[in-house]
């Protein structure tokens, strides 16, 4: 870094000075008196002269603070973890206060740009020191100092003060950027602290409640997707070593808080989440799909003669804040798709469809799952608007004999077991609370069952529903309603199928569900 000679010593001197001033009783309220004097010292030492020197000062200070913590961890004379923590926090909290005051007082009071630029700089420096430390120390890496710096800095910058409230969205943005850079896939040694930060009660409140017009929801969704992406390979194999199990269970807790407090958030971003959650991670996906708007009262799925298509919300399209249409690539495939939907041409579209979805011959990895998800939702939403332009509503009668249903039936017949499983999952992921997507895809799944030309397809549809029903709660309303319809409605001749009796416990399970329905 070719630091100018003497800078390291100056920084160490200043940091030591500041820590003493911060803890001195005369520091004044929020250390403002101490800060006024200290800034003078920084000026005398020339630290604030150039942007480069300020950057070096923060990097050296961060390194010194973390170095002090590593020494405290290895200091055998300090066996008690709370004493080690107190020692680390003695310096870290002072350092955080210095950063906070520099951010608050940089530029004039209403010049938020200088404040935010300085915050981005400092967060970037701390993140850089963390990543280098993470790579250098590998399994010796310790998250504590970085976790403390980030959370205390966030809490200090969340104080109810005018100057901070005027930059609160930018502060959130800066922290989300930093957390995205430090996502678990990039710094697995920091993953536990990362989830603590992302799910801290003040952070949740700021991101999901206090920021107007839900402007931080998209940033928060991105952070959850970062976590799902990290967990995905491990969850995909249902092979959870203890350390992964710990992180998975922590993530479930956070999702439960979101389901309870912010179901609309999960409703809006369910698509993006289900795109990255592995298809076999049933319960976590069910948790997300079970969310429904708080104002909505869901009829009991077991209500006899429940008339789903008479529910007021059943014709309303849910908000889906992911641009799934843009995920249908390449462009000429999307062009052919649109053309087929509109005019059933090119005729070759259906016969080539499977090859567009297949990416390898590796069992278990043959298909482009996000593409299948996007295709299903895109074709389905096109079908719904097509039906609605005819002044009708989706039903078993109105969804048939259409280019959209051609595509779905082709997929049901033409795909192999793996591909059809992913296709049926994409449909079943839309079975949520009463809305037009739930209704359309519920009818589609039942229609595919009724029109299937082989029993294998009907069995697979049953399996896809069943594997989501036998896991622990919660279960999405649309999933229950669809399954009950399948086993209740004689049109589907469900009970005639061999696979219903393929094993005693399966038969018992169907009977128990049937009894709850009747």
């Amino acid at each position, binding site marked *: 870094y070719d630091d100018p000679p003497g800078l390291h010593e100056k920084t160490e001197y200043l940091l030591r000075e500041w820590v003493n001033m911060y803890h001195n009783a005369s520091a004044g309220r929020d250390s403002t008196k101490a800060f006024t004097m200290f800034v003078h010292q920084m000026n005398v030492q020339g630290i604030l002269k150039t942007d480069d020197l300020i950057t070096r000062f923060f990097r050296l200070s961060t390194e010194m603070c973390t170095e002090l913590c590593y020494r405290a961890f290895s200091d055998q004379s300090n066996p008690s973890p709370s004493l080690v923590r107190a020692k680390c926090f003695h310096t870290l909290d002072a350092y955080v206060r210095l950063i906070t005051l520099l951010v608050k007082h940089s530029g004039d009071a209403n010049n938020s740009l200088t404040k935010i630029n300085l915050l981005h700089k400092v967060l970037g420096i701390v993140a850089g020191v963390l990543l280098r430390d993470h790579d250098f120390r590998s399994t010796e890496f310790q998250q504590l100092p970085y976790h403390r710096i980030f959370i205390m800095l966030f809490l200090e910058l969340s104080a109810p003060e005018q100057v901070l409230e005027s930059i609160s969205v930018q502060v959130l943005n800066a922290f989300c950027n930093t957390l995205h850079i430090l996502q678990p896939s990039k710094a697995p040694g920091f993953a536990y602290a990362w989830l603590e930060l992302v799910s*801290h*009660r003040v952070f*949740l409140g700021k991101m999901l409640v206090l920021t107007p017009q839900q402007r931080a929801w998209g940033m928060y969704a991105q952070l959850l997707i970062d976590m799902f992406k990290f967990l995905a390979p491990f969850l995909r194999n249902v092979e959870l070593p203890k350390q992964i199990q710990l992180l998975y269970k*922590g993530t479930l807790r956070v999702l439960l808080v979101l389901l309870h407090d912010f179901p609309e958030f999960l409703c809006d971003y369910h698509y993006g989440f289900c795109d990255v959650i592995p298809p076999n991670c049933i319960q976590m996906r069910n948790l997300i799909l079970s969310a429904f708007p708080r104002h909505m009262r869901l009829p009991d799925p077991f209500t006899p003669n429940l008339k789903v298509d008479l529910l007021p919300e059943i014709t309303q399209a849910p908000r889906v804040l992911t641009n799934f249409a843009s995920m249908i690539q390449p462009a000429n495939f999307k062009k052919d798709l649109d053309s087929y939907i509109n005019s059933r041409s090119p005729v070759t579209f259906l016969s080539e469809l499977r090859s567009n979805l297949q990416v390898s011959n590796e069992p278990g990895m043959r298909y482009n799952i996000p593409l299948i998800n996007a295709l299903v939702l895109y074709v389905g939403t096109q079908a719904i608007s097509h039906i609605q332009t005819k002044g009708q509503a989706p039903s078993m009668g109105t969804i048939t004999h259409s280019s959209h249903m051609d595509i779905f039936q082709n997929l049901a017949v033409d795909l192999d077991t793996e591909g059809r499983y992913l296709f049926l999952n994409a449909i079943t992921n839309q079975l949520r609370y009463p809305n037009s997507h739930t209704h359309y895809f519920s009818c589609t799944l039942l229609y595919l069952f009724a029109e299937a030309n082989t029993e294998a397809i009907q069995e697979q549809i049953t399996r896809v529903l069943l594997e989501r029903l036998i896991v622990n709660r919660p279960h999405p309303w649309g999933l229950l309603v669809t399954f009950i319809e399948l086993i209740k409605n004689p049109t589907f001749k469900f009970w005639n199928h061999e696979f219903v009796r393929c094993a005693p416990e399966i038969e018992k399970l169907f009977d128990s569900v049937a009894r709850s329905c009747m």
Partner: protein
Amino acid sequence: LGSDLTTLGLNLNSPEKLYSNFGGPWAEQPCRPQDIDYHVPSEYLIN
């Protein structure tokens, strides 16, 4: 089959929001009032 999510220490039937007392991803209990930092009037910071 997943796990019983009602045993994770969250009161899922609470009429109140959970997040303001959320103890974190590994906490078996919600935060107690003495665990939650609060911006109290500065005169209260006597120590």
